[in-house]
Every structure is written in structure tokens, then in C-alpha cells.
């Protein structure tokens, strides 16, 4: 079957298998920021935004993308042109192996889109569905708070 959807601002019309997961489709389309950790909805490394809301791409059928807007980390920034959240993660040392980072940044992006001035507690709650085996989370919270501060000063897109 073929479906239309918007991927990081670009129109796509692609062949999918009826039982395919969004995770597999996105990686097939080159979105390698979407990571497979557990495939059971528990780790958060496969998180993407569907119409701006975070979802687990491993538990989302690809067919559900039809007519919707999907955002992966590739849609926020690139190595040459980092998103302010990516910069904040680098600056605060919130990245070690980096496996959890795309999912963390996308849930943080969603949080800041409706709450530009979160408390540390609100940041912790927002990232609570995303596991990180390296950092101990404290620096991730710092990174999101730093990005929020910059967003309030107008450094955002």
C-alpha cells in the first residue's frame, strides 16, 4: 500500500507494508536518528513527533502516518546547523553515547512548545519516559533548562 505524509516538512508518497512499524519505515527512509532500543514501548529511544505530539515509533503502525506530519531529529537540526536544543545538550555535557539523545530532544522540544518556562520538576516529568543509561539525567535536565532560557530570549526556531 502507498501512503502520503509529511516528513520533516517534505511531502512523501511511499510504499509501506500494512504491518510495518513507523520506526522501520523512518529508518528505511534514512532517518537514522530514530533508534531501536526495546521495541516494546519502554525505553523512548524511538520517539518521534506525530502532528507535534511525541509517540513511540516502535509501537506505531507506519500506516498511521497517512495524512499526518512526522518530525524526527533530522527535522530540527543538522550537524552543520544545530538546533538550539542540540547546542544546549552539547554545551552542558548531556550527551555521552548519544543513543537516547534524539528521543530526549524531541520530548524536550514538545515540552518547550507549550511550556517555555518549565521547572526542573516539569522537565524531569517530561523526560520520564525516556531512559538514559549514561548521563544520570542531571545534565539532560540542565540542558533543557538552558535551552528554555535561550528560547525565552528569542534564540529558537
Amino acid at each position: 500500500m502507498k501512503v502520503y505524509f509529511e516528513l520533516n516538512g517534505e511531502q512523501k508518497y511511499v510504499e509501506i507494508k500494512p504491518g510495518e512499524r513507523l520506526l522501520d519505515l523512518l529508518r528505511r527512509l534514512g532517518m537514522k536518528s530514530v533508534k531501536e532500543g526495546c521495541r516494546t514501548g519502554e525505553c523512548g529511544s524511538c520517539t518521534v513527533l506525530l502532528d507535534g505530539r511525541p509517540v513511540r515509533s516502535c509501537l506505531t503502525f507506519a500506516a498511521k502516518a497517512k495524512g499526518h506530519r512526522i518530525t524526527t531529529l533530522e527535522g530540527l537540526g543538522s550537524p552543520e546547523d544545530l538546533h538550539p536544543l542540540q547546542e544546549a545538550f552539547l554545551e552542558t555535557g548531556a550527551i555521552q553515547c548519544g543513543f537516547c539523545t534524539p528521543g530526549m530532544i524531541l520530548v524536550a522540544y514538545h515540552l518547550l512548545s507549550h511550556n517555555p518556562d518549565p521547572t526542573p520538576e516539569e522537565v524531569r516529568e517530561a523526560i520520564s519516559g525516556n531512559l538514559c543509561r549514561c548521563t544520570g539525567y542531571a545534565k539532560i535536565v540542565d540542558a533543557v533548562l538552558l535551552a528554555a532560557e535561550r528560547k525565552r530570549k528569542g534564540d529558537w526556531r
Partner: protein
Amino acid sequence: MAIRRYHYARDVDEALSLLLAYEGRGALLAGGVDLARGPGTDVEGLIDITAAGLGGISRDAKKGLVIGATVTLEEIRTSREARDYLGGFLTEVMRHVATLPLRCMATLGGAVVSAHPWADIPTALIALGAEVAWRNEEREERAPLEELYRRPFRAIFRRAVLTEVRLPAWGGAFAFEKVSRNAGDIALLNCACGLGVKDGKVAWARVAVGATPYRAARLTGVEELLVGESPSAELLAEAGRKAAAEAKVGDDLRASAEWRRAVIPALVRRALERAAREVKGDA
């Protein structure tokens, strides 16, 4: 896996006729988070019902709450209607369910039909006296959820579409408690309790305990113990102890029956205490 077709149903009639045409080899798909974990090897066709007109949350004439089957758990958590119902009891319950990205997909109907014994939503719905409505080939049917769970409900929903969940209005307060290994994990035990107080005495009580590891059940002996008495600290503690005696508990890989029996008293007492404080307006 042998999924061969994916359909987008435009309304309940279409969903139902597709489902019946598959003769057991089709599955209704709402958020799909359960089906994606393992649709069953016999499933050939998925019938997506999220655009079948089963959305929407509203208050009914009697101040109860009516929630469409495909409303997501996060839509419930953030809705004004749910916040206004019983002081935001459902908002609180949803906060305990999984994590945000899962709640953005998972639906209330999916939670009712999947009915995992460890799930939190059936416990809350049973305590609230939820009624569910569904459509089968012949007619629309309704039943209290508690009663539906005593029937072969999985077989029913192989030939029917759950359409909505109705929650009655209650003049009192409810509270929910869950014990799990971490905030995003599934419950080792959960409970939902409600109390109404009139002239200083308990007028009605609702007590449901789930993840025991069996699906939620009401503890009517505990409810009877509470009614007619003044909701004192001693009474609520006694209700907790009675709950441990009345609940059917067992072992699973997460916790032993012994552990569950030891924890139920505190869990039920805490939920009752919070409900009692809220009823009296000093929460």
C-alpha cells in the same frame, strides 16, 4: 506476522462490516500500542477506527462524563471535562498510566478491551461504576464494565465495536493509589476508592483493587463495612485490613501473594484517607 491489509474505517458501520467480513482474522485497531506488541499470528487485516467518529469527551445531562472509545489517554488527562469531573480524579489516574508518548497514542477503548490484569484504567473505571456501550451486528448494547468483564468480553469484541464509556456523577470524592517499581512501570498493585459522606457518616463507598495480579475487582465487604460509620482514622485502617483479607491475591514474577497481602492495607487506607479529606473539603 501475516498482516496483509490495513483499512481506515470512516464510521462504525464500516468498521463493523469489515470486522465481520474477516470472520475472526481481522482486528480493530485504535492507538495500536497493544496490537503492535503482538497482533497474534492469525490477524490478517487491521481496521483503524481512529477516524470512525468515536472521539470526543462531554458531560451528560446528569453531570456524568461520556468518553468516546478512541479518545487518547493524554486527551483525557488534558481535557477540561475530565478536570471538572470529581475534582480531576481521572486526570490523576492518567498521570499514573505509562508515559506521555504512550498516552498520546493509547485510547480508552483499547485500555478497556485489552484489560491487562495489571492495568490501572480498569481499576479506576470499575470503582467509578463505568458503563460501556458497543455495537454488534444486531444492535447497540450497554452494560456495566464490571458485568462485561464477567462475560467472555474478548470474544464479544471480535464481533463488535466498543463505542463509548459513560461515567456516572458522584456526590463525593475518589482517590487512586499505585505501587510500581518506578514511575513509568506497570503496577504491582493499584486501587481506587470513593466515598460519599452525609451527616458525618459514610453514605456510600466504592473500593476496587487491581494488579493483585488479577484484574480489578470491587471489595463489597469493605464497602459494607464503611457505610453508615463515621470515616475515622480507625475505621479507614480497619477497612484496609479487611481489604487484604477480602482481595484475591496471587504470585506473579513481579511480586508474591504475601507481599501483596502485606501492602494492600496501607494502599487502601491511603486512598480512603485522601478521598475522605477531599469529601470534607480539607484535602
